[in-house]
């Protein structure tokens, strides 16, 4: 099993979630984060003073899925989140040792 973690632009969330739903992904967890990367931040102004705010609002998605679905999940996110402009974000894939569904106690693949 793997955890696919993606950092995307906030307004792409709905599209990505729908795309994942359509390939059968049943669950995901969403966090509001701020990101720093090639896309430079913005400037906030306060009474004539500028504050460089280098952190931009982003959305982090975490999807746990069986190893054989990872490719599809990654492709789906990449396709749905893409605008082609800087700051589109990244997808990171890491290993997942165990998964447990709290309600039933089911584990691993059955828990996803």
């Amino acid at each position: 099993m793997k955890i696919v973690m993606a950092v995307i632009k906030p307004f792409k969330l709905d599209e990505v979630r729908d795309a994942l739903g359509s390939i059968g992904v049943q669950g995901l967890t969403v966090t509001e984060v701020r990101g720093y990367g090639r896309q430079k931040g913005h400037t906030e102004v306060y009474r004539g003073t500028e504050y460089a705010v280098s952190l931009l609002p982003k959305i982090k998605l975490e999807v746990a899925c069986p190893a054989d679905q990872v490719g599809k999940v990654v492709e789906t996110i990449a396709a749905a989140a893409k605008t082609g402009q800087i700051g589109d974000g990244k997808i990171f894939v890491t290993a997942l040792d165990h998964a447990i569904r709290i309600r039933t106690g089911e584990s691993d693949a059955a828990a996803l």
Partner: protein
Amino acid sequence: MTSKKFPGLAALAVALLLALALALPAFNSSYAQGQAAPAGNAASVPAAAAAAAPQACDGVKITENCTPNSGDTAWMLTSMAIVLMMTIPGLALFYGGMVRKKNVGDTVMTSFAITCLVSILWFVFTYSIAFRGGTPFIGGFDRAFLQNIVSNTFKAGVAQNIGTPNPLAPTIPETVYSMFQLTFAIITAALIAGSIAERMKFSAMLWFIGLWTIFVYSPVAHWVWGPDGIFNSANPDAKFHVLDFAGGTVVHVNSGTAGLMAALMLGKRKDIGPPHNMVLTMIGAALLWVGWFGFNAGSAVSAGMQAGMAMAVTHIATATAGFTWMLVEWLLRGKPTVIGICSGAVAGLVAITPASGFVGPVGAFCIGIAAGIICYWGCTGLKRYFGYDDALDTFGVHALGGAAGAILTGVFAVAAYGGTAGAIEGNGGQILNQCIGVVTVFVYDAVVTLIILKIVDLTIGLRVSEDVERGGLDLALHGEMVQ
């Protein structure tokens, strides 16, 4: 935390009792003002309303018992309420929105606690020393604890709606006048807190503000508005006739100067950042604007032509200054900001304050443009040049705006509106009078404020520890946090 805070607290309580004790002897030996008092700056206003009801207060027979004018009283009751609204929640939110989220509770509580503290002092004796006759420099103690405020003879009663009118406000009950003026004392003190935001100890703030109200606000208010004040333009014996309709000097130059001194004494904040919620600031600015009609039009102490003109010029100057600041910022920084237009509006309100009973609509428009530009510069160029950390720009907006307004009053005053001509109508000397007022207040205020701050610093310390400052004052000092 408890043990560190407690001394301040205990001392505070003791001081209050002390003040009470000190005041008590003066209770009956106070200066006998009564009949002999000069007519005051509002005396001329309601002359025309007299003829009708023999029992009505009319500004002529001001020392006899009479019935207040219900229309004037209605407006002054309203004015008091909306000027209070300027400080809480107005100023509390205006300032609260501009600090970081971790300090918003301390910031709004500062305004609220100052409201309580200054009100208690006012009741005890500061009203009396500010607004009762005494010397040209300070008033007497004959209204300590608001004694005899209904009637000096005490034969007439509230229930009969008859009382001795105050010469400063001949057509309304003195209770109302006292409360109305209290709201000015409150906001002046609360304005200072903009300079010290995000780093002063809450206990130190209370001490500082309490002492400042006694030793700076009260005498300065007496100079300009006291019946025998040295600068009172309605006092024929005054040394200099300074025009200050609603407090450009007493309120704004005064608070701004104290703020600057406090910012200098405290030093810079460890970390600064953009305002956490400009919506709160907008609410605050809007309530300041709304309440300011009570401030300026209320300073006519009657509901007539003068109040009407004060309302009109206040509104015009404010709208113009807000728009000007926004345009300047847009031009220089590329973006019009919420904080900017709100700051500009407040700058306009500040600058028109001393002028509001003396100038006309076109003068107000010019003052508005000047305020927008000058105060923008005060918060940017000037501040950067000298490098002090006047956190929320009490000096840049209030001292500069107040001084500009005071001086421009000397330029744009129209004799037909307020009784005194300005430079444009040929009375160039008025500008000099205005400058004398501003400079005197600046110097006196700066010196006394520094002394007070030094004393507070040496006794309980002015500034929170770095840890508290970094983590935010809300949790450390008040045990509260906005979610």
